[in-house]
């Protein structure tokens, strides 16, 4: 019973220490967010007439909704690619020697150490008409004329998947590291094959990492303005570019504010699905 007062102490110290950051967030995040919300409740660009016109405009306009839909879909695609490609790397990391581990960590972290702009330009070089992929395919005689990779949905997904990959791999590495390797052996010795062991043991136990990785990757992918616009081009409209267009080029701040709020809510909805899944997976993962 003596533990209860001690743990209460710990909590109160935590709150006190968190106060500066809380204040910082209040001033520079919550307050601007409220201001944004306030602005979005105006029907005219000067911000004089109150109303829900901006929201109605967005929610009744099939085009705007399609932009939102394609952005959310893009996030899902990127997350899926990252998960499928990132999981084996994380799995491998737990099963190699310390030397190889360092190399893997370095490779995973390397993209984070170069600027997004540089990484994105590299993808333009790779995906371009005379880029590495087209040049290789042409020299192998597989294609006659270059295929269009740049400025396509496919190109955006691939580029974003590489750019955001560390956000998926790192939580996975941590989660897989927490799994007791003996469980694998136990499963095998009890007669389960490697696939069965993976699906029944490894995957469920790594779920917290999967969900954390998916949340991070998803949020980063749908808001990645630079990669989306450089690899996707001017005719592929996603929410960040739509927002930028309304706010910067057209100076239509109330509509831009409404777009932001709707986008924020949509993302929050998706993220809360992830966290709910995460909570449900706690029974498995023991985190």
């Amino acid at each position, binding site marked *: 019973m003596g533990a209860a007062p001690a743990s209460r102490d710990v909590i109160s110290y935590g709150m006190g220490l968190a106060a500066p950051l809380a204040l910082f967030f209040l001033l520079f995040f919550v307050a601007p967010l409220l201001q944004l919300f306030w602005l979005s409740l105006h029907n005219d660009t000067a911000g004089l007439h109150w109303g829900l016109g901006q929201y109605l405009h967005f929610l009744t306009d099939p085009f705007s909704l399609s932009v939102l839909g394609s952005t959310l879909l893009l996030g899902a695609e990127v997350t899926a690619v990252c998960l499928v490609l990132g999981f084996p790397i994380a799995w491998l990391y737990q099963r190699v020697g310390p030397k190889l581990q360092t190399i893997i960590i370095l490779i995973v972290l390397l993209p984070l150490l170069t600027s997004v702009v540089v990484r994105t330009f590299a993808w333009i070089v790779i995906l371009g008409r*005379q880029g590495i992929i087209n040049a290789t395919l042409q020299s192998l005689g597989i294609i006659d004329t270059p295929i269009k990779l740049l400025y396509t949905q496919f190109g955006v997904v691939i580029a974003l998947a590489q750019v955001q990959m560390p956000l998926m791999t790192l939580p996975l590495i941590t989660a897989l590291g927490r799994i007791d390797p003996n469980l694998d052996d136990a499963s095998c010795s009890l007669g389960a094959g490697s696939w069965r062991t993976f699906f029944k043991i490894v995957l469920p136990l790594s779920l917290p990492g999967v969900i954390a990785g998916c949340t991070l990757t998803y949020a980063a992918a749908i808001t990645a303005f630079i990669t989306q*616009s450089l690899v996707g081009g001017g005719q592929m409209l996603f929410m960040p570019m739509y927002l930028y*267009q309304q706010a910067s080029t057209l100076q239509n701040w109330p509509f831009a504010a409404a777009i932001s709020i709707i986008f924020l809510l949509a993302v929050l909805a998706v993220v809360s699905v992830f966290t709910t899944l995460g909570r449900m997976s706690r029974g498995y993962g023991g985190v």
Partner: protein
Amino acid sequence: MILNRRSLMTTALTLGAMKAFPGLSFAQARPLVFATFTGSWEEAHKAVLVPAFRKANADAAMVLDPMLSVDQIAKVNAAKANPPIDVMLHDPGPALVAIGQDLVEPYPVEKSAYYKDLIGEAQEPMGPAPFFQVVGLTYNPEAVKTPPTSWADLWKPEFKGRVGITNLNSTLGTGWLVEIAKMRGGSEANVDPAFKALEELKPNLAAVAANPGALATLFQQGQIDISPGNFNAIQILKARGVPVEFVAPKEGAIAFKTTIHIVKNSPNRELAFKLIEAALTPEVQTALMNPPYLIVPTNSKVTMGGEIARVLAKDTAELKKKFVFQDWKKINEQRSAWIDRFNREIKI
């Protein structure tokens, strides 16, 4: 918790006082801030305009704070009473927005020694144009053997899948659309013909870039062979060894006035005026016209030379004949509707 009533009151009072007496919150001697554009503009201004200004004004302190027009407007708008910028540089569309939002002061024309020497189109009482930007056709001479001569050449079947354009976010994109409308019988008030023309251009379109800068990359990567392009941007690519050439189409090259403005309520009004004066002098404009900058001058006393004389105009008279100026007041009225339409209709 540190946040008791007293500290809260102090903070509130301080914030209130700063709001009521904006002078309090800023040191009086802020250096002159000139928001030029990013990239080659910044380089040119750092190398030529700033030294010229310093020399003429006893080494007055000044800083370049490069940013896009729209960001300049947003920043000044956010602090109208105490703007963080003294001198703004604008493309024609944003210039009208800034003037419309009452963010700039009229230029003291009567005090200016150089204003009267400017070409007529550059004499803007709310802020003169020290430079022109010119948009024409850009092409890769290795892939396009006969140089194009007209905007209409973009529609030629031989350029199937080789044409690049930008969307309407940029001045270049919007200006180009208006020019296409004019070519097909439209005007600044009616761009329907241009949208029809874009529909016909679709088979030729290889890329719709998000901004003019991205077009340059597409040339470098061989993604496109021909596009509308900014004269200065092309010169930079050329200097880097990319095979690109610029031609003024026979319909006339689109000329944008890049105007320079004194920000309303600027604490450095006098120095701001001096900086703009420096930008209008024949010396600075000549230096900026020479390589590597190749910025088109607006002072009629500047003798055109080099690449500008070769591909654009030998003198002011020819410049007036070959350049097309557009009515951005009219364009701004409908620009948002056009952008909306472009978003919806142009999918390739």
